[in-house]
């Protein structure tokens, strides 16, 4: 089974470990990734503040490149913001002929065209529904018993499209986590916002949102994420946020493919836990003890 692969800008640099662990996991599970040649930025939440048309044209360029390759496949996207933008562009272009006309006039500059039709899938959707917990349980090499994992979905994987999970009470990660032998930490914050891009422009507000999340995760051993922005927001300012709240809120934050990879004894080169910014000592000790 093949997928087009759109890594997006974050996965090239600040979220390298998400890219590497996703590629390694998919290889291990026998899925082929066709990285879109010459892909460019999806516009994130920036394009929409400047130009509505640009916010559709930027993702459309990548959809057009995928289609032009001649392959037929769904497009796998690990970043929730890229996922939303690509999916939104595909829907608007498919639905609205005026938008389609304008987008294609712009794309013609690049010798490209797009009329809709590439199915955009979030990595979580593919893991939960195409691969499934059964495949993880079958391949299990290293059970993670007693590990309490808080599933964090964030916003844009779930909303506005609600394509593969409940947009307010998501649960698609539960069976995947359980398949690793770990247990799901019961909390109600899985679909709340981490502040996203506001961490750069409205830091105080975003840090409050993250503090609420870290607070609610007390009692879990780690939080699992499926988006580079969520991951960065949750892991980067923990010391400062602990000072802000006057209590220790440090907790390990890992990407879902890293957690699944651990249980499948994926090699360190694919896991790249060395690149994560927030792994607590007790968490590392737990992992080391389990590996014995």
């Amino acid at each position, binding site marked *: 089974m093949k997928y087009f692969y759109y890594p997006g800008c974050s996965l090239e640099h600040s979220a390298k470990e998400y890219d590497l662990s996703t590629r390694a996991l998919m290889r291990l599970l026998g899925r082929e990734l066709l990285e879109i040649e010459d892909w*460019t930025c999806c516009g994130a*939440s920036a394009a929409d503040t400047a*130009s509505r048309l640009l916010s559709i044209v930027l993702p459309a360029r990548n959809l057009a490149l995928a289609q032009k390759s001649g392959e037929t496949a769904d497009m796998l996207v690990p970043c929730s913001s890229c996922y939303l933008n690509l999916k939104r562009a595909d829907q608007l272009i498919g639905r609205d002929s005026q938008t389609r006309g304008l987008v294609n006039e712009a794309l013609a500059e690049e010798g490209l065209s797009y009329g809709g039709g590439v199915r955009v899938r979030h990595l979580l959707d593919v893991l939960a529904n195409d691969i499934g917990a059964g495949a993880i349980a079958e391949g299990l090499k290293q059970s993670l018993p007693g590990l309490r994992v808080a599933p964090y979905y964030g916003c844009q994987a779930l909303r*506005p499209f609600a394509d593969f999970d409940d947009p307010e009470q998501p649960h698609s990660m539960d069976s995947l986590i359980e398949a690793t032998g770990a247990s799901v930490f019961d909390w109600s914050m899985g679909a709340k916002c981490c502040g996203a891009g506001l961490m750069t422009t*409205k830091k105080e507000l975003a840090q409050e949102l993250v503090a609420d999340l870290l607070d609610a995760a007390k009692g879990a051993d780690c939080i699992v994420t499926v988006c580079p922005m969520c991951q960065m927001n949750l892991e980067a300012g923990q010391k400062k946020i602990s000072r802000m709240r006057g209590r220790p809120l440090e907790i390990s934050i890992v990407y879902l493919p890293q957690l699944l990879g651990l249980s499948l004894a994926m090699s360190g080169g694919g896991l790249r836990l060395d690149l994560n910014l927030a792994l607590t000592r007790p968490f590392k000790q737990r992992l080391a003890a389990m590996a014995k």
Partner: protein
Amino acid sequence: MAHSQALGAPGHSARDPFSEISKNLRACMQCGTCTGSCGSAAKMDYTPRQVWRMVQSGLKEELFTSRTFWLCSSCYYCTLRCPRGLPLTDTMAALKRVATAEKYANDRKSPPFYKAFLDSVRKYGRVREAEMMTRYFLAVKNPALPLSFVPLGMKLLAKGKMELQLPGVSRGGKLERLYKKVMELEAAQ
């Protein structure tokens, strides 16, 4: 290049963008579900529900001198829950667009940040984080701002997750033609 020209902002089209936005909100019944769902509402000068009312009442100056919509994180909770199914997150984005195009100085950081982001993409096709942040710092001209990002920058550098790069000064860019065409098309709208 000014932001509005650079991207053919809707403020320069024949239609009044504010009344376009207002049209989308006509069915609002002021129930407040959006405000109750918004994680940023407590920090906003006006709550989302109040924003829709202000748009409908044409209170443009009041709205655009507030910071409200720049606190929207695009979480889509309001859009999901609005009983009238209104495109609320898109409306917040449209307000950001109008404020940027018409140069309302209601927020010192947000427009330069988004501009730095889009300029980086225009030039390289993909965001280069360090280069983009340098553009942003240069535009905001607040010497304390870069310092607040130093700890994270150092961590990312140490892990090889960021490459230092200064903004390119050469002309042209990977997506120059595409951006220009989009501007042109939008201006003609």
